[in-house]
């Protein structure tokens, strides 16, 4: 029982929850009648996807991606002083940034102390763009209400059909 928990549930349990959240949002987007509930379902779907992306960059025992003692970390064997930060005097243990010659990810890589910053960058953009498009969607909802006096999908479809039958 414990080893079922450790082998099956523990590595992936949060991905199951993200899939459940995505499906809750997707169901509400299709099946709900009210337009505002549909928008809320869309927002929940978006945040579930963003959760998924950010959790790809989590490392066990890592700290936030902000260099703290940046005097010592980035210039490991370099003398900290007035003549530091010259790119030519990089220590020999750091090879040139050529992907082919970079050391293969061995154990105790010093970069393991920081969380992966790339998913955070991409998801910052996604959150802000999400709220901007939510604003546009809510503006459309208000105009629909002004025109047809209802926000329920079945009544809207009936009224639009009645408009087309008259015209």
């Amino acid at each position, binding site marked *: 029982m414990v080893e079922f928990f450790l082998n099956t549930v523990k590595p992936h349990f949060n991905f199951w929850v993200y899939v459940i959240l995505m499906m809750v949002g997707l169901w509400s987007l299709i099946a709900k009648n009210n337009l505002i509930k549909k928008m809320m379902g869309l927002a929940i779907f978006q945040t579930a996807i963003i959760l998924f992306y950010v959790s790809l960059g989590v490392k066990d025992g890592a700290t936030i991606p902000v260099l703290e003692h940046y005097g010592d970390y980035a210039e490991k064997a370099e003398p900290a002083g007035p003549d530091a930060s010259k790119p030519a005097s990089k220590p020999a243990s750091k090879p040139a940034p050529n992907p082919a010659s970079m050391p293969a990810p061995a154990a105790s890589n010093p970069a393991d102390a920081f969380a992966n910053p790339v*998913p955070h960058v991409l998801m910052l953009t996604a959150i802000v763009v999400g709220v901007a498009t939510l604003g546009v969607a809510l503006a459309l909802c208000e*105009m629909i209400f002004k025109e047809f006096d209802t926000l329920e999908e079945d009544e809207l479809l009936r009224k639009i059909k009645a408009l087309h039958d008259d015209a």
Partner: protein
Amino acid sequence: MNPKIFASIAVVITGLVLLYGVSDFPTFGDPRSPANSGVEGGAPSTSLYYINESYSATKVPNLVTSVLADYRSYDTMFETVVVFAAGMAIFAILRCVGKDDGAVVAPQRKSSIDGDHNRIIVGMTCRLAVPVVQIFALYVIAHGHYSPGGGFQGGVMLGASFILIALAGNLEDALSRLSERSYMALAALGILIYAGFGVLPQVLGKNFLDYGALQKILLTDGPEMARSHSMLGVEIGVALTVMSIMFAIFANLSSRGTLKGGL
């Protein structure tokens, strides 16, 4: 009933397919997963490059800000343009000048907090809170290099301070402090600043958005400090646009386009 049945079937099938796909994922929190350190025997992931090399190239300790505003600044520029375009879209959809539509639900008009003695507590609290929020927002923008923060967070907080004035008092209170012409001009100015930081290196002969070329104009010792200062300039542009558009979206949505009544 038909949409509900169709939705349930679609959701269940999609959910089962996704759950089956989840079983192939790397373990949650694994430092050796392909996203975190690259494929064994293949190329290492770009995040290793950013963690190891970005401080010596840009002198900015916050790795997220340096990747967002320097290595992937093209992406961030178009994100700002998307926010601006959303503001323009809401302006085009909702804004109606002069036509007083007093239709089904007319927005309630509250009185301003300056003159109303019944809401003196709310007015006083708002007067105390708004300067603190704005100074903290400016701190978050300026300190984005050294701590979590940056242009987006600070810009949204500045916009939220104007929304607070509109919620505590009248929409006209907030509009008298940041009028429609001002916020439209500020939104465009923010994007102009960002694009200006991009085009200026092109004028000097280097690539678009190559901040290291600006070291002669910014009078720094090397390209690293020029990149650091340009990142601050670019974040200021982003903050201006995001502040204006957040307040614009709220003002148009809460008054249904007329900018007269409101929440």
